[in-house]
């Protein structure tokens, strides 16, 4: 079969990180080629290289035998590569046909007015090709998620794409909608379109893909025809890392149950989530992106509305309506997105650290300036925040130091339960070790710690127990001894454990 797209030895770096290295990928005509990998393995970066969003530092991109150099997304579109993104980029108030041709509306006549008749005919032709029966003048806001997804596919096809990249197309779809989508994909395949298919759901890959490539830590691992691999093989390729060398955990005495959450639902993603945590325990939250880990944490502390669910602290039910209620009960959440809401970038280190606990150093609302400086100074010293002085703007600190400020802000509230959401994301190795050391010491001092992390080795080596989330529900809970990378990943991916062990 003819090769339509070939990537050779692609290397892409961002300041301080190597995102892709030695990446190879070959797509044949009329093939459905799945790409699998853990969170942060480099799938998104790879797609963006194919789509001309990221320009690789090294390596070759060959489209239909011709070497190309994409400088912008338009180049990739011209070369016949269309991308259907995870989040749709449609204009809700425009019609289906306008969305399909936005930016290149057909024009006619002296005044170059929009040729609606031609646009409608064209849009209808593409929908007919995909076997979708729908009025193309309907506004997009009336469409469901699946229909929007199909419109995105149609849009890519209307640009004469011969290569279609589908990034997690089924993430938001129901089972029946997935079936419809698969029929369309099959139809495209039959008409000679090549498809790159990204999905976390392994059973979908087995159902639809012809070929699979696995990537890990930004590098190509292996590829094989789907008919020749099984789940166990895939998981092994995706994991393939030695766990033991990472972060030894400090010993701590585990005490009574401190916080227990039961029957937590939010009406959209979370379904009946229950877990409990003891004093001095580190509870890891594992799962894929969007599985409901952060959502559970934010719903517990009142940052996200919940419909049902009880939160008990030492057996006493708490009424948490807003975050302040959680703070006052000693439950602190440290955000995963520190730039957005973890710290206030333009403010000083001092003001950031004391922000959430300011009430405790105020008399009649007036800040005790001496205590304000003392608190900030003690955390700056304790965490060795690298800055010339405490009035230094947080936005000018490195990622690791910003994270230390964010954690200091939480700890200054004197928490009994500390929820850390991706505490080491985007920090360098040194700062990472310091943060792990700190988490261990806090647990040893009797604090209960919930650690949400997408880094499997981090979760496994730090946690006393691991709760695994899948599609908004708890898929399982493993003790430190039981938890292996394979078991956790299998639970997160809904593959059967026995299958993996076999």
């Amino acid at each position, binding site marked *: 079969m003819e090769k339509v797209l070939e990537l050779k030895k692609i290397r892409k770096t961002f300041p301080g990180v190597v995102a892709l290295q030695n990446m190879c990928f070959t797509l044949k005509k009329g093939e459905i080629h799945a790409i699998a990998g853990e969170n942060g393995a480099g799938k998104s970066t790879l797609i963006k290289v194919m789509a001309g969003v990221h320009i690789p530092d090294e390596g070759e991109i060959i489209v239909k035998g011709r070497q190309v150099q994409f400088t912008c997304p338009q180049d990739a579109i011209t070369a016949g590569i269309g991308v259907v993104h995870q989040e749709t980029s449609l204009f809700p108030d425009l019609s289906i046909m306008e969305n399909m041709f936005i930016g290149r509306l057909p024009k006619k006549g002296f005044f170059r007015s929009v040729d609606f008749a031609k646009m409608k005919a064209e849009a209808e032709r593409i929908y007919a090709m995909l076997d979708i029966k729908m009025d193309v003048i309907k506004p997009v806001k009336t469409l469901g998620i699946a229909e929007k997804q199909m419109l995105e596919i149609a849009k890519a096809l209307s640009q004469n794409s011969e290569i279609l990249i589908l990034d997690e197309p089924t993430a938001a779809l129901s089972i029946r909608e997935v079936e419809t989508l698969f029929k369309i994909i099959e139809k495209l395949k039959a008409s000679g379109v090549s498809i790159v298919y990204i999905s976390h759901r392994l059973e979908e890959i087995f159902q639809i893909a012809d070929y699979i490539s696995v990537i890990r830590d930004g590098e190509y691992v292996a590829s094989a025809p789907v008919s020749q691999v099984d789940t166990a093989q895939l998981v092994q390729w995706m994991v393939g890392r030695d766990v033991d060398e990472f972060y030894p955990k400090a010993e701590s005495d585990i005490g009574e149950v401190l916080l227990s959450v039961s029957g937590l639902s939010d009406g959209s993603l979370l379904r009946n989530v229950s877990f409990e945590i003891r004093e001095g325990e580190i509870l890891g939250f594992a799962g894929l992106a969007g599985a409901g880990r952060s959502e559970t944490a934010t719903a517990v502390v009142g940052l996200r509305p919940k419909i049902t669910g009880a939160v008990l602290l030492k057996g006493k039910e708490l009424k948490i309506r807003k975050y302040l209620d959680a703070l006052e009960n000693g439950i602190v*959440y440290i955000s995963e997105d520190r730039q957005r809401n973890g710290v206030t970038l333009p*403010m000083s280190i001092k003001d950031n650290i004391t*922000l959430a606990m300011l009430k405790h150093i105020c008399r009649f609302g007036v800040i005790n300036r001496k205590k304000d400086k003392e608190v900030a100074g003690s955390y700056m010293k304790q965490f060795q925040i690298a800055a010339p002085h405490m009035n230094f703007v947080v936005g000018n600190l490195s990622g690791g130091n910003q994270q230390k400020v964010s954690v200091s802000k939480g700890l200054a509230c004197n928490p009994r339960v500390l929820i850390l959401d991706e505490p080491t994301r985007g920090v360098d190795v040194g700062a990472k070790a310091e943060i792990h050391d700190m988490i261990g010491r806090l647990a040893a001092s009797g604090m209960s710690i919930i650690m949400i992390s997408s880094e499997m080795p981090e979760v496994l080596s730090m946690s006393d127990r691991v709760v695994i989330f899948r599609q908004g529900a708890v898929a399982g809970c493993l003790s430190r001894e039981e938890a292996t990378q394979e078991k956790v990943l299998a639970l997160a991916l809904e593959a059967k454990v026995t299958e993996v062990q076999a």
Partner: protein
Amino acid sequence: MKKKRVQEKTIRPPEIKYTHISIIFGLLIFTCILMSVITDNFFSTKNLTGMTRNFMETALLALPMTFIILTNSIDLSVSGTVAMCAIFLAKINLVTGNIVLAIAITVITGILAGALNGVVVGYIKIPSFIATLATMFMYGGIAQGVSQAETLTGLPKTFYILGSGYFLGLPIQLWIFAVAAILFSFVLRRTEYGRNLRVIGFNPESAVYAGINVAKVHLINYVVSGAMAALAALIFVSRISAAKSNAGVGYETDAIIAVVLGGTSISGGYGTVEGTILGILLVGILRNGLTLARVSSEITTIILGMLLLLTIIISGNTGGGVIKKHKKEK
């Protein structure tokens, strides 16, 4: 010696724009010199007193406006509130003959008017520009309806002290403003509320993630703004010894210009009460001095507009500040 100064400079709190304030201070001195050259009687006691009396109502409105702009919001409705309060004061006094009751109801009206703004902006989350534009029309319309476009008079003589009396040789309203300014400055510098204002302006989401009740802060801000508008209305009616439904017209724009000239970022977070005071002085002196120099008020308004644009461009105080720089680095 020099080294020490540099060090002190770097450990200043980051939320104050020193460059901007220096520019405004320089401008202020330049304007004073200019006025003494182009007019004969700018520095006469009579003129300075008159100028102070004329501009203190706007100055009082600029203080809560500083807080509101710090949280990345705006209050356009203050002119309407002033008009409504002024008319209520005169009307109730005419009907009941009880000035104390009239004052009480006026103040309550101002607070309620502010509370409505606060609820709409803070809790219903309507963009403040639209919300207060709507209430500006509502309050102004009420003033026109109640007054039937007539000038209302008949207030007791003793009431005029507020607008034309002296205390220790200075106009009474200057004292009122001084006390208010010290209070606002203290709240912004030293209290939890003041720090919350900045956080909300810089990043409302991180404010929520620090347990701050953002809606409540907006509500308090607008209630204070409404109360200050009522106070301004009392002073206005007392000063001109009558109430008209066009009282307060243009107050909101002058107050906003004073705040922004004074270095408060229109997108929130950065700013000081001291800067606002400089802004008030600059706007007040320009308006008065140019009138003395027989420049028409339209030209004065044009000059103010140009000045506002220029200072913002020169000082680069377009908001964003650190975040913008940071994004670029990424």
